[in-house]
């Protein structure tokens, strides 16, 4: 398997994770560490299949997925912001609820259990752009992906622009960094938090829909930990949209590398550990660096000032 196909698979694999990561990033920018990304993605996946099944149209299916996960995240937001429930406990309940619901509803909706496969014309259309063919390597890698994957690749740049350049972005950063100051500056903190979580829900719905509709089927527990990988990616990238793009692609590349090694004699569990180990280091490293720099700076100015003071 040559490097080009590995990278193509990496991009295809990173698409859904990237969408969910961008959602999680926005939530953590307003100080809500959203542990339930996995739950929202699973609901998005399941509802998109249900939507496609009933409406017979892929994009209405995607819309259905987005609506379902947004409704779920509204409940999550109301419980966290209004009733001040412990966010971690709330997230775990949402995850158990999501996996329970999607497992239960298979029976009443499709009359089967375990999995449901749609007809192939309901698959997520793959876009082939001939102008991309001209570009030698990058063209091949970026070609024939679904629209949502292209959206996922563009999204980090859009988010970076929104967060750094727009008024809404300034409000989000302010609410995240110092809520009291934001209140005194007249920002409706609650509105900002709800809107950030809503966008998070929409993106998780999109991520789930892309995952499910690209294989036009739903299988119990098909997100298989991608929500947690997204969480690890944004922690590793310190909630910076462009860095998160890189970390998501990195994890996608690692996964597709293992596929090319055909998974033989290679413990997938070690691969599974990689994102979390890196995220752990990334959570701690900046603080350690900051303290060392301060320590050195302080030591340097101390010795200079004191010796110079007593010299004359």
């Amino acid at each position: 398997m040559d490097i080009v196909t590995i990278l193509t698979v990496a991009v295809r694999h990173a698409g859904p994770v990237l969408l969910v990561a961008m959602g999680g990033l926005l939530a953590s920018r307003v100080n809500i560490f959203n542990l339930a990304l996995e739950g929202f993605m699973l609901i998005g996946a399941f509802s998109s299949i249900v939507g496609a099944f009933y409406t017979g149209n892929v994009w209405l299916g995607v819309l259905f997925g987005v609506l379902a996960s947004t409704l779920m995240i509204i409940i999550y937001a109301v419980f966290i912001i209004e009733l001040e429930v412990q966010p971690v406990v709330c997230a775990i309940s949402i995850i158990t609820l999501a996996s329970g619901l999607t497992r239960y509803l298979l029976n009443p909706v499709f009359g089967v259990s375990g999995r449901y496969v749609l007809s192939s014309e309901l698959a997520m259309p793959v876009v082939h752009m001939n102008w991309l063919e001209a570009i030698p390597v990058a063209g091949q890698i970026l070609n024939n992906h679904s629209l949502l994957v292209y959206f996922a690749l563009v999204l980090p740049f859009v988010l970076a622009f929104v967060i750094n350049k727009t008024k809404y972005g300034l409000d989000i950063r302010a609410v995240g960094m110092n809520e009291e100051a934001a209140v005194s500056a007249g920002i409706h903190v609650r509105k900002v938090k709800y809107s950030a979580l809503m966008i998070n829900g929409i993106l998780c719905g999109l991520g789930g829909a892309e995952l499910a509709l690209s294989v036009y089927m739903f299988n119990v527990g098909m997100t298989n930990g991608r929500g947690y990988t997204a969480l690890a990616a944004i922690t590793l990238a310190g909630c910076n949209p462009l860095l998160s793009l890189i970390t998501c692609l990195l994890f996608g590349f690692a996964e597709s590398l293992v596929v090319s090694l055909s998974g033989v004699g290679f413990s997938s569990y070690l691969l599974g550990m990689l994102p979390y180990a890196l995220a752990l280091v990334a959570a701690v490293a900046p603080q350690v660096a900051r303290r060392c720099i301060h320590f050195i700076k302080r030591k340097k100015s101390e010795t200079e000032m004191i010796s110079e003071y007593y010299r004359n």
Partner: protein
Amino acid sequence: MKRKLKKTLAMMLAFVLLASAVSGCGSKSGGESEKHRIAFVSYQAFDSSEWLQNLTKGLKQYEEENENVEIKCIEALAVDQYETKVRACCEEGFDIIITTYSDMADATIAAAADYPDIKFGILQGEMENIADYSNIADFHLNRTETAFIQGCAAALMTKTGKVGFVGGSDSGGINEILAGYQQGIAYIDNGTEDVVTYCNSFTDPTIGKEYALQLIAGGCDVIFGAAGGSGTGCAQAAEEQGVMYAACDVHYTDAAPNAEIGSAMNYFENMVIAFIDDTIHDNYQGGTSREYGIAQGAAGYEFADNDLAPQDIQDQVMAVSEKIAAGEIEIASEPLHK
């Protein structure tokens, strides 16, 4: 006042969503219990793998067919529930208790020791010293035989002379199937080469599809998937790329209607029903380990009804199946290579 309204609204929202979702699930079971009360305790949720779904369906059917039998299917979802659920069955007066896989071996042994008069059966138990336990019968479905036949079919059907395998995990159960498959190909011996991969998940069709696409890109024109839910992804890849798919345990015709050659069917329900029959008619052999295979009707090879496989190959494959049933072919359970 506004805060109170908001709180009740939030509660209502959460409750409405849950209530509407759960309304349909769970079916009512009733029926008076006569002589035999049988409990089937599964170490996984029924809907998490295909063979378990077929098994529970088969048991329900069996229960309807004969009056003097009441079968209760119970899911033990977490490790700490294995022993307590088995003991609860003993307390509730079930006289035959069937547990699953080596995960529940310890729990079964512990319960069997305390309830000598209850007859225990363990499916795929892999218990070394089964003889010491007089009231536990270990029965094991030989999936290598049907995989062997699948290997022959694949070797006969392939045009490029290269076939692929996608396993759910690099573990004993799956490698048993791989062993049969590889020896089946060797038995046909027409120079077919086989590539082995593991997708490390039983519930992720997306990753299953990636592995299958990679095998197809590598020149395989028959993909043998033994990975539960992930296998559906492989079937879909085969269907889309116009290559052939060989299924395991159940048919994957929902994902690969015209690509599936056939499926190495493993009728776990037949095996369990056979065990129940023996126990009811008092030839329960506690302390023994029995293997059910094609001969005992617990497994068999079925071609998909899209008649992808020409008649002559089907006959050849069926001939091999008879030979195995007659026990003429020796099949090892260790894979030739990975």
